[in-house]
């Protein structure tokens, strides 16, 4: 009974166990349960904060009929240790009402249409999900069940009690649309594998993923598409799920290549007490013409896209990067590393080339050096990383200004190429115009 204090509740029930309410934890638990229920149907919606709506239209044939599916759902939920009240009906509103308000002893499944109306007619008005004050108003007039409401003319009811009552009644009886919003959009390209026994060994996962990939690749091929992103969901016996995802740089329908990408993830699989259902979805697809596929397979040569995908699958996106030259004079910004996407361009000069030479190795950020002179000309000696260097030769200066539109200040750098007594060549600059002026070393020439 809501509103009781703990002391009163303990007085009523001597052996009561009291715990803190955890609404966030409950919500998270309900979300994970909803994800787990997707093993039966992809259309699972949350209902309030303690219920789930599963749309099993079209899923019954996989389980031997709707009745068998519902019995299976109940059995598995009870086996997972979840106390559940189950009810099934032809519309979501009817299912909601039947679950909560059915008379004791009635069968939970109410799908057959002829008797459904009679059973639904015996439900109390509270099963229509109307506000409690409306329920009380109806009770004052003597309308207590749905059947009473059905016998009255609709226009009179709408005039007296408002349009929501009629709308709820229509939804209950299936005369108005009652859409549910599933927690995630169902994926069109998916393959599902339900196992008789839960699996936890690596070899079993390999075979299961192989079967799923074969099925998915066939259906993708029929649609002329290739997968860019795949999501594998593992449904464990203890009502939890694990999700593995894999991406490719180019659309692919090659089952062998995709299987190898998943092979990098095997050690991340945590089977728990066992995995009994696997669902593989292609969440991002692109057009892939058959001509491209046969060209790659015919020559039997592995392609750059495949090795890029495998590197990324194992070591993250920094494992496959490419140089990109940026149109800027500031040296540390001129070269960037970006993720490798698509085909590699043909060989040739980079897009942005400075006229002056640049060192092969750059230091970021530039390190300060200690010089013997602090004027504009090249010093004779400088100290860097604990060593003394004597400058024998030098070239320069090359003046590079900072990008005032980006940095907000206008600093000036005068670059010099210098060679020390050992023959090593450095790229140093003298900075002016900032708070920390002075000499710095920026790179090494080869």
């Amino acid at each position, binding site marked *: 009974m809501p509103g009781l204090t703990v002391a009163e509740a303990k007085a009523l029930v001597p052996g009561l166990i009291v715990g803190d309410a955890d609404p966030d934890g409950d919500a998270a638990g309900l979300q994970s349960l909803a994800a787990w229920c997707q093993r039966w149907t992809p259309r699972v919606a949350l209902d309030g904060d303690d219920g789930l709506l599963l749309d099993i239209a079209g899923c019954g044939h996989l389980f031997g009929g709707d009745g068998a599916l519902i019995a299976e759902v109940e059995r598995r939920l009870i086996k997972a240790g979840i106390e559940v009240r189950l009810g099934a009906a032809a519309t979501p509103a009817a299912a909601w009402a039947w679950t909560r308000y059915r008379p004791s002893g009635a069968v939970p499944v109410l799908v057959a249409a002829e008797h459904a109306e009679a059973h639904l007619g015996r439900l109390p008005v509270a099963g229509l999900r109307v506000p409690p004050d409306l329920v009380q108003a109806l009770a004052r007039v003597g309308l207590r069940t749905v059947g009473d409401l059905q016998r009255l003319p609709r226009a009179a009811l709408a005039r007296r009690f408002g349009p929501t009552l009629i709308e709820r009644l229509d939804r209950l009886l299936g005369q108005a649309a009652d859409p549910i919003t599933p927690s995630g959009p169902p994926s069109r390209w998916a393959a599902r594998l339900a196992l008789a026994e839960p699996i936890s060994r690596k070899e079993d996962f390999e075979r299961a993923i192989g079967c799923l990939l074969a099925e998915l690749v066939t259906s993708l091929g029929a649609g002329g598409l290739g997968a860019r992103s795949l999501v594998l969901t593992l449904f464990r016996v203890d009502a939890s799920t694990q999700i593995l995802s894999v991406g490719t740089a180019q659309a692919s329908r090659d089952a062998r290549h995709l299987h190898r990408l998943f092979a990098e993830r095997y050690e991340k699989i945590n089977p728990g007490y066992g995995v009994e259902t696997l669902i593989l979805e292609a969440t991002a697809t692109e057009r892939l013409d058959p001509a491209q596929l046969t060209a790659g397979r015919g020559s039997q*040569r*592995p392609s*750059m896209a*495949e*090795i*890029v995908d*495998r*590197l990324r699958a*194992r*070591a993250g996106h*920094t*494992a*496959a*990067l*490419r*140089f*990109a*030259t940026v149109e800027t004079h500031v040296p*540390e910004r*001129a*070269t960037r*590393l970006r993720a*490798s996407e698509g085909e*590699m*361009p*043909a*060989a*040739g*000069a*980079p897009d*942005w*080339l*400075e006229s002056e*030479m*640049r*060192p*092969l*190795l*750059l*230091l*970021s950020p530039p390190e300060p050096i200690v010089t013997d002179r602090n004027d504009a000309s090249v010093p004779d000696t400088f100290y*860097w*990383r604990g*060593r003394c260097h004597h400058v*024998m*030769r*030098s*070239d320069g200066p090359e003046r590079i200004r900072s990008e005032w539109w980006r940095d907000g200040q206008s600093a000036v750098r005068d670059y010099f*190429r*210098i*060679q020390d*007594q*050992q*023959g*090593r*060549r450095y790229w140093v600059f003298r900075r002016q115009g900032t708070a920390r002026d002075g000499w710095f070393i920026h*790179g*090494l*020439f*080869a």
Partner: protein
Amino acid sequence: MARSEDLQALRECIKRLEGPASADRPPSLAFGVPAIDNHLPDEGLRAPGIHEFFGDECDASRFGLVAALAGRWSCIDRDGMETTAGSRLEDDAPVFWLRGPAATWLIDAQALWQFGISPQRVLVSQCGREADGLWALEEASRCSVFPILVGEGLALTPLQARRIQLAAEAGRATVLLLPPPLSQPPPAAATRWRVSSLPVHRGDASIGSPRWLIELLRCRGGGPATWALEWDDEQRRLDLVADVAGRPLAATPCSWLA
């Protein structure tokens, strides 16, 4: 006469015993400098195989030499480029550059172009963990997509070096390694080099073209030697330098490298 024939037959026999049959061996990576190429047993760096280049920490000369060699392999045809027969595998071949956890400097894309490598044909892999870097290098060398690979900042044990060599032979790739400066080298490399900078002695005060002192420390099938090379920027090739006066003292003595 018969003796030289016997010697030649013995050399062939040893070559066959040492590695895969030379009939289907891809052409080796030549320096383009006849003095060096004639000294090396394969007329260049053996391909497939792994080769190591050592140097000091604050010295970029070994990077320059590796970039020049990789540029010779993967460059597009340029006029005036001298090549020994069969030293270019295919035009526009991509290069794989692995940067291990010990790689601290940034690489400038424009400087790569100056050495003859198209920066947009380079696939760079930066792995935070050494195990991932080794795996990436092994898989990239095995997959036959990259004829040349550069592994920077990886310290290899003998077992790891052997695995990479087997992968390179399976994928017909050449791996050029740039180990961290103070690491223990494994004995599996086909050649081991030490590269340092040489000062330029010219009339004017300009710093001139890059000059390197390269020492072949260990070579399978050949002996150690030393050369002084200069990189010609305009013609993009390596030349032998006549004068080796002004050899620098080694900054850090490493006895085990000898």
